[in-house]
């Protein structure tokens, strides 16, 4: 039966595909135009009507990005920052989330509300004193400034707590009778079960860390300590209208996240759906 219905072209489904395809073209066109422009000469980029496919591929645009700015350093800074923040959040958020979800202790609710209330306040209400702390500690223009304020997270604690609370209660009872302490229960029993939650948090942290712009602009003005996002802003300052070079820079800054998304798509989608339902 299914093969019969498959063969008949369903007019409704055709309309759906047409609408979705038009939308898809609008979604993807800016990316294609970025890639095409990044290998054009400046002359080709300003021709009317536009050159779609360049005569020869201008790899110079990419080398220009690397020679005018320390783009290799930008990669390094972004990658180190992202890894440290992600590992930190996975560790600290899951520890706190376990305690809030599975242990009873005095002050539990007050402390949890204190941590969660952070989410109600816009970031801008914290950022000036955070900057002043960085000045005091002489952390300006260091990777430490990019990393340390981001190793704990109220969002992550909340997300993982919801996750831990949904696990059955008798899981740790057996372990307790065997004399396991809470750290062992957390490490051996809870963490493996919380994998979907941890993956979701990791994906959010990686994305936010990689793409963040305002904090790096504020604390790291020295090019050797900038991440890619702030580096892209500098590149724009230097090549105001030279769009092929700017597109090469934009491509260099974005391809790792795009590639990661394409390969780990399932986890991205599950993670976001999870935050939507557990939140």
């Amino acid at each position, binding site marked *: 039966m299914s093969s019969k219905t498959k063969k008949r072209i369903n007019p409704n*489904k055709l309309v759906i595909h047409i*609408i*979705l395809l038009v939308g*898809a073209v609008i*979604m993807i066109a*800016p*990316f294609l*135009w*970025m890639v095409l422009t990044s290998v054009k000469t400046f002359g080709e*980029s300003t*021709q*009317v009507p*536009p050159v779609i496919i360049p005569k020869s591929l201008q790899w110079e645009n990419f080398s220009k990005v690397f020679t005018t700015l320390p783009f290799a350093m930008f990669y390094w800074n972004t990658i180190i920052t992202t890894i440290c923040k992600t590992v930190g959040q996975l560790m*600290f958020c899951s*520890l*706190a989330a*376990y*305690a809030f979800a599975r*242990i*009873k*202790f005095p002050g539990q609710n007050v*402390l949890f509300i*204190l*941590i969660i209330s952070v989410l109600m306040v*816009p970031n*801008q*209400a*914290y950022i*000036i*004193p*955070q900057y002043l*702390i960085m*000045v005091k500690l002489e952390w300006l223009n260091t990777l430490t400034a990019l990393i340390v*304020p981001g*190793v*704990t997270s*109220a969002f992550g604690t909340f997300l993982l707590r919801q996750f831990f609370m949904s696990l059955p209660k008798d899981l740790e009872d057996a372990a307790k009778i065997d004399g396991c302490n*809470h*750290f062992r229960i957390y490490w051996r029993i809870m963490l493996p079960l919380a994998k979907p939650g941890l993956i979701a948090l990791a994906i959010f942290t990686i994305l936010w860390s*990689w793409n963040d*712009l*305002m904090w790096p602009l504020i604390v790291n003005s020295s090019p050797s300590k900038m991440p890619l996002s702030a580096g892209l*802003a500098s590149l*724009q300052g230097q090549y105001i209208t030279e*769009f092929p070079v*700017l*597109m090469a820079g*934009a*491509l260099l800054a*974005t391809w790792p*996240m*795009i590639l*990661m998304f*394409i390969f780990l*798509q399932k986890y*991205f989608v599950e993670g*976001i*759906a999870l935050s*939507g*339902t557990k939140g």
Partner: protein
Amino acid sequence: MSSEVSVNQESDVKIQKKTKFWLNKQKRGDYFWAYLMIAPTLLGTIIFNIWPLLQSFYLSFTEWGAFGSYSWKGIVNYERLFNEPDLLIALKNTFVFTILSVPLGISLSIIVAVLLNQKIKGVTFYRTLYFLPVVTMPAAVAIVWKWLYNADYGLINYVLSLFSIQGPRWLTDPNLALYSIVLVAVWGAIGYNMVIILSGLQGISTTYYEAADIDGAGMFVKFFKITLPLLSPTLFFVTVMSLINTFQVFELIFMMIGPNSLVIENTQTVVYLFYEEAFINNDKGYAAAIAMALFLIILCVTILQFKLQKKWVHYE
């Protein structure tokens, strides 16, 4: 007999004492581990959130001089918020931006999600393409769209010229620039909302639709009478998140317009104004007052939404 009983009682008491002691020890262990486990997060929260929030509040009453010195000036900064046009203009821009981009973005996300929820081929393919902007760095998105919007050589005006339409100056026309950025924000957010809405749609039991089929309900009746009400908790979540995010839009304004543009007054949002005052003009007292105002506004809007949710959100 009686002695036997008393022996039993004695041993009971002993066991009770023992268990009580054991419980206490266990409890003490619990507390120790709990505090140890929350310590890093609690410390981070106090140092980087609670204390800064209090300090921001204090700073909003100060005026900043050269070399990072500041002095108490009372409510001067708050008076400036009301007397100088900056904040009002930024607020107006932020409201226009939000009121256009949130409903437009969510409606489009619902349409895409509903279409993807039909049993069609290529769902993963479509989902990938629609989601791509979400994982792309906003700073890069801004540069690419700046290029697309370029009035003389941009792709968009070229496509318009094919239909004999003279394309506008998207980012330099003071009456248009803000709306141009709204389009980019909508384009960038569809994928994220779509994924959440799609998972909400998949949670709706098919029995509702089967019942509606028996009653002979049409596509639109089903959408408005079944899908939307059952989806309303998801839509509530998406709306709250979208509002908070668009209220804080910064990257697109900073990268696409920037401090040197003539139309910055027509496009600057509250968070952009905050950044400019705090870190370009070094007027941190005034900026702190802006941050406090933003906090208050977001708080009010969120409370309002939770109050209003009773009117339109249906929980099963």
